[in-house]
């Protein structure tokens, strides 16, 4: 696969790893927050940590759209599917996420709700075309990357007068979440979360460009390197961050230049702003209410807004009390700090969203790193080196 295999090359990985070892100052720790779950996934999936010196640490951020969706919104989606007898189309990622009382879409489906997993909004539109006598709702989640495809779907539905199609919009914005973390007391005052630099989002940035991060670098004095999702991208970007930190710089650098430009994808941005507008406030799991951090469908397209079309009841949505997802999403705690981790909460019976999504820190710890400390001590590890 062109533009994929080259960025997983073992020799090149070794080269970068050696450079990091040379340049990282053993007298200090480098705390790098990878905002994106995609980076978390790559770090675990490829064992990137094994190639890094001990003092280069990754702090996992909240950049997993599945993880940050508050339980209330998921409960609403389940209700729309069950109560209003619609065909609810969802990305596969949402299927197993537990809502209140562990109710997930996959459970609702088993109980008879018409829930269909789709790969694309194009498929959801097709389902709407093929079922003119049914209401078809697309459960839209995701960051700036996933928003433009939803915008195209709404425009297409309008053009084709697909009256039975609507969108339950949960699109959220990356820069507001990063800002929120940087302004949180844990980072600003308490110092419980040490962040020396950020691996910036890859595919989000392909849409919004690298400019929106300038503010953070400037205002908070933290270096940002926009990094691709392949393992060598992550390593090279870590090296670039280490160099900035060593030199006392805090700039926005772009490692992922093959896809990310400074202005981003203007056509996609235009489509998004045609269809969506800012919500004054939106609740994030883990971060709480974050002002201007999400999008809603504009009045012009209200006909396609599932929130307007389908009434949902007031409900007491709640997460499992001792679930540490919120703290984990802020980088305050590690999955292994959670009492539920690996005991009652596993990917087989997840209590929180971080254990479901393949980008969730808990799922990554469990799937790729269970008993890791023990494994490190075992002779296996020596054999690998």
């Amino acid at each position, binding site marked *: *696969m062109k533009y*994929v295999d080259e960025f*997983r*090359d*073992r020799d090149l*990985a*070794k080269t970068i790893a050696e450079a990091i070892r040379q340049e990282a100052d053993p007298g200090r720790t480098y705390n790098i927050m990878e905002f994106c*779950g*995609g980076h978390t996934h790559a770090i*675990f*999936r*490829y*064992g*990137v*940590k*094994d*190639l890094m010196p001990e003092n280069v640490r990754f702090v996992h951020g909240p950049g*997993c*759209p*599945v993880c940050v969706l508050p339980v209330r919104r998921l409960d609403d989606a389940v209700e729309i599917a069950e109560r209003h007898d619609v065909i609810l189309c969802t*990305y*596969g*990622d949402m*299927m*197993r996420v537990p809502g209140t009382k562990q109710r997930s879409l996959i459970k609702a489906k088993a109980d008879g709700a018409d829930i*269909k*997993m*789709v*790969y694309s909004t194009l*498929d959801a539109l*097709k*389902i709407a075309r093929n079922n003119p006598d049914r209401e078809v709702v697309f459960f839209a989640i*995701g960051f700036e990357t*996933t928003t433009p495809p939803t915008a195209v779907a709404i425009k297409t539905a309008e053009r084709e007068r697909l009256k039975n199609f609507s969108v339950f919009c949960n699109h959220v914005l990356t820069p507001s979440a990063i800002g929120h973390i940087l302004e949180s007391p844990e980072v600003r005052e308490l110092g419980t979360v040490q962040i020396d630099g950020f691996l910036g989002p890859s595919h989000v940035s392909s849409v919004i460009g690298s400019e929106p991060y300038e503010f953070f670098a400037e205002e908070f004095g933290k270096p940002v390197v926009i990094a691709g999702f392949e*393992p*060598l991208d992550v390593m090279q970007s870590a090296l670039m961050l280490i160099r900035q930190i060593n030199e006392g710089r805090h700039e926005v650098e772009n490692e992922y230049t093959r896809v990310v430009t400074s202005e981003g994808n203007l056509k996609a941005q235009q489509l998004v702003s045609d269809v969506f507008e800012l919500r004054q406030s939106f609740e994030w799991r883990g971060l709480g209410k974050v002002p201007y951090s999400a999008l809603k469908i504009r009045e012009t397209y209200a006909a396609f807004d599932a929130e307007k079309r389908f009434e949902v009841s007031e409900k007491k949505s709640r997460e499992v009390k001792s679930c540490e997802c919120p703290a984990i999403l802020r980088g305050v705690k590690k999955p292994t700090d959670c009492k539920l981790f690996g005991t009652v909460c*596993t*990917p*087989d019976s997840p209590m929180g969203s971080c254990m479901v*999504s*393949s*980008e969730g820190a808990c799922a990554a710890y*469990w*799937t*790729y*790193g*269970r*008993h*890791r400390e*023990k*494994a490190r001590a*075992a*002779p*296996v*590890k020596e*054999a*690998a080196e």
Partner: protein
Amino acid sequence: MNAITPGISHRKGAVDMAHGGGGRAMAELIDDLFRRHLSNSILDQGNDAALFQVPAGRLVMSTDGHVISPLFFPGGDIGSLSVHGTLNDVAMAGAKPLYLTAGFILEEGFPLADLERIVASMALAAREAGVPIVTGDTKVVEKGKGDGVFITTTGLGVVPEDVHVSAERARPGQAILLSGSIGDHGVAILSKRENLEFETEIKSDSAALHTLVADMIEAVPGIAVLRDPTRGGLAATLNEVARSAGVGMHLDETTIPVKPDVAAACELLGLDPLYVANEGKLVCLCDAGDAEKLLAVMKAHPLGRDAAIIGKVVEDDAGLVEMETEIGGLRVVDWLSGEQLPRIC
């Protein structure tokens, strides 16, 4: 009654409740469709139970229910799959398969032409494998209570003397061999699944592995473990073995064969080929000293051409399967929770 050539009307029509009712329609269906295709001397006895001689020695028996959507897929269909699947389960005990049985649950309204295609495909698979289907059963359920057709097959086989193949015989130091590329079956199925469609030349690897197993056992009778990595893929199979024997495993990602198209489809859908189903591959554990010899025998067989040594068994009470990744890091290869779903993030 025979004058109206029931066969032709059958093949134009659909399954109805009468086909499972025990009356004439059922008898016609059995004669015209099942017996005609599957005919062999034991089935043709025509009794409710098949009568046959068994060889001396240890027998193994395995049963497997087959449900799949779509019923017809690139490289096979539910018919051939139901034969291969059970033959492989028998073969993974180190056994030579002798006989098969087949039970059908048909949904009212299922086209008889499709049923005939499926039965013909079963017949061909059984003939190619040299293992007859000696008895069977058919039931019909009301429309909406089935998914076209479900097939349960049972296989009987005999294990050669001195062959002791079992998961708990996995021991540290043994080599792990894989008979070929992983993920072909799962990707072929996914490519035809509604709302996911993509084009690929990849076909299901559905195949009967017993002749490959026979060659392997002849060369190395001391083979410790044989498994076919079906549902849950290679990862699930290795974890099952590791857990039942209380050992760990260490794999090298670069040695695990994955066809470029399978890798590409997995990248596109966010899947990991380690968890994607196979229907014509086997995993084998044997003493390290026998590994090269066994590998050569596997490579000489058409179903083992791409065989590879993919890792080794190590000591680990936790029963962890670990893998050195493409870039040289280390990761755990865990079980999968439920079905692997395509993802966007």
